[in-house]
């Protein structure tokens, strides 16, 4: 199974549960959440925006790179939330199913690190006083 998705509706992990294939011995799941502080400031909520077409294409390229490096039989899901997110909501979900855990961990780590460096998504953080700040990012 391969899923690459940007969505404004909440990410529900149960939406991505599917039957295991015989050759998959494990699944590594990375889930990012909106937390209540950043750099010592209280966070009220977060807003994510994206260049949707480029973001989706980049995520597909990353998925293909992971399969090239760690095996064509990997099942990969990458989902990123857009829009306004409350504290505790899931911002990003990455699942890698693989024959062995070392491959699953490595591919999962690769995907989240690359996503943070290469995918055109921007995070705007709203504080308790209703001020906001764009988070410092990584130049493309």
């Amino acid at each position, binding site marked *: 199974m391969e899923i690459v998705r940007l969505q404004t509706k909440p990410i529900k992990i149960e939406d991505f549960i599917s039957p295991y294939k015989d050759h998959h011995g494990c699944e590594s799941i990375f889930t990012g959440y909106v937390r209540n502080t950043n750099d010592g400031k209280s966070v009220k909520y977060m807003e994510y925006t994206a*260049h949707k077409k480029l973001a989706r294409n980049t995520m597909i390229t990353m998925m293909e790179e992971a399969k090239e490096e760690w095996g064509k039989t990997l099942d990969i899901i990458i989902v990123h939330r857009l829009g306004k997110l409350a504290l505790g909501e899931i911002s990003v979900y990455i699942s890698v199913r693989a024959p062995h855990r070392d491959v699953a961990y490595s591919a999962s780590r690769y995907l989240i690190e690359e*996503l943070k*460096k*290469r995918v055109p998504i921007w*995070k705007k953080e709203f504080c308790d006083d209703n001020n906001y700040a*764009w988070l*410092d990012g*990584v130049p493309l």
Partner: protein
Amino acid sequence: MYKITLFGKLRDFKHQDNFCVETDKELSVKKLKNLICVYLRDQNPNNNEEIGPIIKVSALSDNERILTEDEIVNPGNISLLPPVSGG
């Protein structure tokens, strides 16, 4: 003519998400970024000091891929992408 769409923090510098840059020449990425910088500085006299540094680290895209600094940009729809912060 280039129709420029802004993303992320760059949207703070313009009330609409996009605007047009009229020119009779095809420009390199570097020159188009300079022109955008001048335009946004004119529009935002109060944020003048912020605009230059963020445009310098922003990338131009033809909405298919990221363009390299010395590339010539074909007229049309172009996106200006500041540093990314997903995840």
